[in-house]
């Protein structure tokens, strides 16, 4: 499936449609199903952080699943690093899996409770047959330290239930980074964490972005986070992309109504108290 790799774009999605249907066999007319992703096209350049912003149920996680080949799409084309994702099989699929990794949403559900941190982070290395047991241990330690679990020897043999939420998320990041991927999908990596831990995770992701040659697809419902982290963003609503552009431009000069709604929905801190206007000010 190897075609010419695009020199500037690492990922190109064209006219992706995905409809979920119930698998119930029925003698009546087939049900229409739910179109989660409706004719979505965008591209991501090498080395940039691309944000996908949208509310719940807008199809952003579905898009990530399609991109990771966890689900198949109905029509359209995804080109990743010169590979046609739809038809990947066997060795090509394995090499695809090595290049693209994911940072999951929920650190409490995304680690196997029966795997120690050593096994969790080492699993991708075992699957892709990288290194022997000694070099693997070394790589696992380095990945842990790079994701801020220091000293690594304190964490390497723990089990998920012995870690806090933030530590689990760091372990998940270490697992994603251990294969040294080209592309990382971060699916709301901080939505289950509190604000201060979210901030430290963002700092970690920024460091990873700066120090390694990684492209990010950052999925979020939070425009503030997108503004902090992304170079370009796409706003997705009901499975359609309503607006794409450089982050600053989209936020400062929104063209689509939905983008404006999102911006207005952002909480703002006003430090000037609305004083002396009566007690019942909202």
């Amino acid at each position, binding site marked *: 499936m190897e075609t010419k790799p695009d020199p500037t774009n690492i990922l190109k999605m064209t006219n992706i449609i995905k409809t979920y249907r119930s698998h119930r066999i029925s003698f009546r007319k087939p049900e229409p199903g739910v179109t989660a992703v409706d004719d979505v096209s965008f591209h991501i350049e090498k080395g940039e952080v691309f944000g996908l912003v949208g509310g719940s149920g807008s199809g952003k996680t579905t898009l990530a*699943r399609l991109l990771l080949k966890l689900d198949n799409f109905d029509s359209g084309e995804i080109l990743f690093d010169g590979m046609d994702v739809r038809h990947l099989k066997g060795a090509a699929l394995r090499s695809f899996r090595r290049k693209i990794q994911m940072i999951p949403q929920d650190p409490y559900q*995304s*680690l*196997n409770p029966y795997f*120690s941190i*050593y096994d969790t982070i080492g699993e*991708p290395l075992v*699957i892709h047959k990288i290194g022997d047991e000694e070099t693997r*241990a070394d790589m696992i330690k380095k990945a842990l330290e790079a994701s801020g679990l220091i000293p690594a020897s304190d964490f390497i*043999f723990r089990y998920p239930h012995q870690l806090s939420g933030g530590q689990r998320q760091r372990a998940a990041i270490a697992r994603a980074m251990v294969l040294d991927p080209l592309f990382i999908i971060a699916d709301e990596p901080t939505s289950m964490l509190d604000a201060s831990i979210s901030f430290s995770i963002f700092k970690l992701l920024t460091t990873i972005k700066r120090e390694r040659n990684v492209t990010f697809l950052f999925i979020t419902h939070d425009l503030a986070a997108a503004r902090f982290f992304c170079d370009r963003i796409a706003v997705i609503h009901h499975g359609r992309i309503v607006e794409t552009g450089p982050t600053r431009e989209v936020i400062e000069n929104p063209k689509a109504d939905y983008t404006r709604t999102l911006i207005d929905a952002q909480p703002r801190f006003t430090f000037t108290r609305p004083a002396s206007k009566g007690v019942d000010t909202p």
Partner: protein
Amino acid sequence: MNTVTATAKDIRRSYKRQRFLEGWSLFYQNPVGKIGFYLLILFGLMALFSYIPPLIDPMYHPMTGVDPQISYSTGPSWRHWLGTDNIGRDIFSQLLTGARVAFLVGVSAAFISIVIGTLLGMIAGYGGRIMDSFLMRFADMVMVMPSLLVILLLSVLFGQLSIWIIVLLIALFRWPAVARVIRSQTLSLKQRPFIDMARVAGASHMRIIFRHILPNVLPMAFLYMTFRVTSAIIVEAALAFLGFGDPNTVSWGMMLQWVWKTGHMFQAPYWLLPPGICISLITLSFYMMGRAMEEVLDPRLRKERDVA
């Protein structure tokens, strides 16, 4: 660096031991589990001691040993603690051997049915759709078959079945319930994000089933094994009592059949009661252990007990 991998194995082992000890202490705090466990130890000792009487005197051999001075059923005495059967064989010795057979039948039949049930359940749950419907309809078909009747018919057709064939048949009829439970567990596990993460890492289906799903369903499989032991022992006893057991083994069901066939049902309670009580108690013991294990595995049940 070698130390890291060496410690990895050590820590994994010590973690497993710790988990086991935690589970065990919860199990042991539960009176139901404790009683079941002691009963089980009692039967285990009986099975072990069953090797001793024939060594003391060949007349204590449960099958072939006949007391030369006795040719009819006698009550308990110092020479024969539970008396003798109608041809002068020692009932106590037969009872001990029966424990050995019960363990053999119960545990091996349960083990085989658990292996089949867990494998098929995981494949059905993980494979989904066609595989799932096919395997589960097959399980339904086996489940509704009256197993005792089918085994009876088979033994009528093929003559006396050996104990191992009986074990195998029981196992082959008793896996569907396990498969159903394991399938439903697998279905819910399959939706958990760590399975998706394993796929993203490039794990094969085999790896996902055996490394990720299997450890998560194994406790449930062991729980069901204790219930399967119970049903296997009962089926074997029923078969033997109806006269279709292995004629070369002394099982409790077989003893009951001898009591019945020789017409000592109401004349020799010392012959009738011990095997009957033993069958009840050993199934009770496994059942109680299963219930206690269930509480260890299901935290919701545990909470309820703490409140009460």
